[in-house]
């Protein structure tokens, strides 16, 4: 083959190749035009995301409590909590909801993993476009970013055990078993160890939902954080000084007491309780107070005060009186507290049993209050040892917090017998006896307690202990109108512990009469009839009975624990007539000022029903008195 031929041939081949190519190639291309593309034609065609896809957020506004935990964990600062106007205000929630900036969000899902209520979720939605940057900032609702029917939204990423970011289980303090605790009045719940306290503190997400619920608005997240940092002096400062920028709001001079026996409403709303157990706020508070020696308190807590020349008298050294005294002293006033009993503390000293609140805890709190300059004059009853008018002449303002000192009787036939006694005086006698300041009270072998509240539990459990210590066995029957444990006003915890200690509880019975042994002045027991309804349609106390159902409870002694009433006999008629009463309680303004400008009041005679409300009353009254004495006029609030 010549060279030329060779080249020609090659050319020919090439030509056919190019020919073929130019002929077929477009065809292939055209064919592809009619085939389905390999790529997905977003957004006309939607590709389902994986079941665990972390797409756009949705938030159930009914479930969300506005705690802001999602916003605090977000590593890109994408979530801002924004107030919702006109949202219903309730304890346990804040009127705000999270808003998310998708210009910042990295779709990590941590907000979903930590969401305390489980309201915040991620969907499998991921397609959205807009030219307007504003559209990427939104508040997720049930309808999501794309405003869809909730039933049409597929949920994506969901928290599971390994991505859970909350610690849901509470660290329980050590406590004595019922068989051991019934043998004495020793405080049966032990204090947290440091390890326990730090671990419990670490469960708090610092949302502050509890702060709104606390009547005194204690700085709970702040002191819990200080425990976590193991800075107990700082924690104590938060307890005793509260928020220094807000006139010490949140301070509680009876923190050692409250760390043991507070009704702890804060825990009922704790954010963690939605999916787990509430943070043990009360026990953490006790841990702080117990672990800073009293010698170091002054170091941790001092007030800048300039002395005034004004003097304030306080009547009653219960929580309200002591609290008012503390705050007034911190403002530089000269404070004298008058107390008819031999020791200060009111119900904390003479009512609450020792196994819940030992004297030493109360003494530590009171020692600091006295160190602040509050003078407590015990054994001086106003109206008996010094007249109210005398106080009026000697002082520039008066705060009364005399509590509910009178018992109430069922007044059923036979209740005037000396072995039918009221809970309060008996609790008082027991406490005096236990501290070696009084004779042994009468301890009957069989006791019937009437009442379904915490006071009934306290007296029943105290008597059970005394019976066990004296006779080796418990025989206490408790009966009340309320038909179930849930309906009973006592805490469920108290009821459970009482049952553990051997007390028999018979709810749903109304006392009818005291039964005596024939021809003997000796009580045999209590006759009761079935209680079918405690409250009427208007939720008013109005019990109804079925007299055909009768029950007898055996007992040599009957204790009435059905409520207390105030004793205003120390108030001269002249002043009593000027005060406005609502039922047995005194009406005041927000600063606890009565209709008489120089007279302020608080505690159970104004609000109640517990220690922390009394402390809050003392705080506000101190501010009110300060304002009154500063202006020497009326406090308008």
């Amino acid at each position, binding site marked *: 083959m010549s060279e030329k031929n060779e080249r020609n041939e090659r050319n020919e081949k090439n030509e056919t190749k190019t020919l073929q190519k130019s002929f077929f190639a477009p065809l292939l291309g055209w064919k592809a035009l009619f085939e389905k593309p390999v790529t997905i034609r977003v*957004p*006309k065609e939607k590709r389902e995301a994986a079941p665990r896809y972390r797409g756009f957020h949705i938030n159930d*506004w009914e479930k969300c409590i506005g705690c802001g935990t999602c916003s605090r964990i*977000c*590593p*890109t*600062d994408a979530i801002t909590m*924004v*107030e*919702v*106007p006109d949202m219903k205000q309730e304890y346990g929630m804040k009127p705000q*909801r999270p*808003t998310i*900036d998708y*210009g*910042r969000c990295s779709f990590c899902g941590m907000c979903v993993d930590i969401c305390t209520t489980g309201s915040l979720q991620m969907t499998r939605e991921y*397609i*959205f*476009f*807009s*030219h*307007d*940057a*504003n*559209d990427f*900032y*939104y*508040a*997720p*609702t*049930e*309808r999501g970013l*794309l*405003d869809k029917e909730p039933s049409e939204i597929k949920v994506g990423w969901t928290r599971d055990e390994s991505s859970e970011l909350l610690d849901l289980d509470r660290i329980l303090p050590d406590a004595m078993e019922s068989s051991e605790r019934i043998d004495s009045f020793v405080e049966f719940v032990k204090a947290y160890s440091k390890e326990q306290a730090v671990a419990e503190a670490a469960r708090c997400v610092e949302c502050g939902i509890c702060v709104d619920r606390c009547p005194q608005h204690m700085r709970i997240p702040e002191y819990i954080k200080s425990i976590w940092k193991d800075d107990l002096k700082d924690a104590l400062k938060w307890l005793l000084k509260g928020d220094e920028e807000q006139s010490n709001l949140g301070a509680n001079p009876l923190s050692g007491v409250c760390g043991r026996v507070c009704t702890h409403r804060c825990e009922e709303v704790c954010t963690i309780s939605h999916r787990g157990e509430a943070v043990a706020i009360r026990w953490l508070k006790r841990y702080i107070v117990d672990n800073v020696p009293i010698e170091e308190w002054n170091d941790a807590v001092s007030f800048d005060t300039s002395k005034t020349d004004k003097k304030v008298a306080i009547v009653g050294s219960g929580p309200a009186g002591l609290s008012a005294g503390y705050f007034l002293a911190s403002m530089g006033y000269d404070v004298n507290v008058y107390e008819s009993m031999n020791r200060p503390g009111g119900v904390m000293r003479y009512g609450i049993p020792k196994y819940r609140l030992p004297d030493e805890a109360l003494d530590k709190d009171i020692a600091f209050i006295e160190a602040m300059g509050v003078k407590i004059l015990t054994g001086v009853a106003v109206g008996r040892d010094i007249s109210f008018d005398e106080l009026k002449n000697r002082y520039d303002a008066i705060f009364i917090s005399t509590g509910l000192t009178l018992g109430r009787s069922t007044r059923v036939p036979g209740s005037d017998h000396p072995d039918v006694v009221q809970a309060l005086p008996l609790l008082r006698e027991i406490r005096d006896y236990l501290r070696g300041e009084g004779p042994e009270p009468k301890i009957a072998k069989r006791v019937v307690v009437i009442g379904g509240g915490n006071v009934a539990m306290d007296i029943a459990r105290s008597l059970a202990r005394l019976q066990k210590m004296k006779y080796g066995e418990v025989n206490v029957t408790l009966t009340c109108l309320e038909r179930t444990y849930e309906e009973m006003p006592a805490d469920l915890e108290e009821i459970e512990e009482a049952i553990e200690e051997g007390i028999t509880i018979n709810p749903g019975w109304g006392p009818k009469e005291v039964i005596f042994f024939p021809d003997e002045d000796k009580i045999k027991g209590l006759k009761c009839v079935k209680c079918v309804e405690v409250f009427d349609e208007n939720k008013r106390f109005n019990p109804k009975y079925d007299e055909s159902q009768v029950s007898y409870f055996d007992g040599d002694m009957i204790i009435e624990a059905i409520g207390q009433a105030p004793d205003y006999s120390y108030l001269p008629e002249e002043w009593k007539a000027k005060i406005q009463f609502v039922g047995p309680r005194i009406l005041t303004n927000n600063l606890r000022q009565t209709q008489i400008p120089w007279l302020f009041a608080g505690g159970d005679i104004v609000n109640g029903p517990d220690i922390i409300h009394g402390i809050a009353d003392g705080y506000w009254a101190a501010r009110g008195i300060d304002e009154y004495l500063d202006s020497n006029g009326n406090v308008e609030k």
Partner: protein
Amino acid sequence: MMNSMNDASVSQELQKVFEELKSMFGSCEAVHIDARQYKLIVPSDKTLGMLTYLKSIGYSHLSIITCVDWIDEKKFELVYILFNWSNGATFLVSTFIDRDRPVFYTVKDMWPTAEYYERDVHEFFGVEFEGNENCKKPLMLELWDDLPPLRKDFDPLQYSKEHFPDRTYEKDPIHEARIIRGDIEGDIEGGEIDG
């Protein structure tokens, strides 16, 4: 191929490998993950030898090199994931190195792809691989000027705040949400999915 072997025979085969490894490298902890997955924890001076051996007996696919920051223990854990195409089994070879002096050796001569995995581990954890001259070249994070971001002591929130200042939006997202929920009436405009 992979499915042609059942779990029992794979497990038998793996048992043999463990014995070999033990005789060659002394103590080596094997953690069972599932029938075809085991984690091998080896001292760092034996890691390269073990990788070489495993490669030679069929565990030749290096799926990835990754790292875990054990900040409290002051260690970085390097993890090499090796896969065997013939029996479908995987070994996670793990070794702990000093967190304060995070240097290890490259394996790019055994697996060229390792160059990129090592760059990735360097970028996100700050571990250097001796012998990989490109180790410090940025892979994904351009102009990064902070701690390697997957270290536990890196603070993502602070980083976001510093590098991405908040912008203000001209809308009230809560107002919009209340309209969407039907709590109040009103109009909203905005982007749609159909563009």
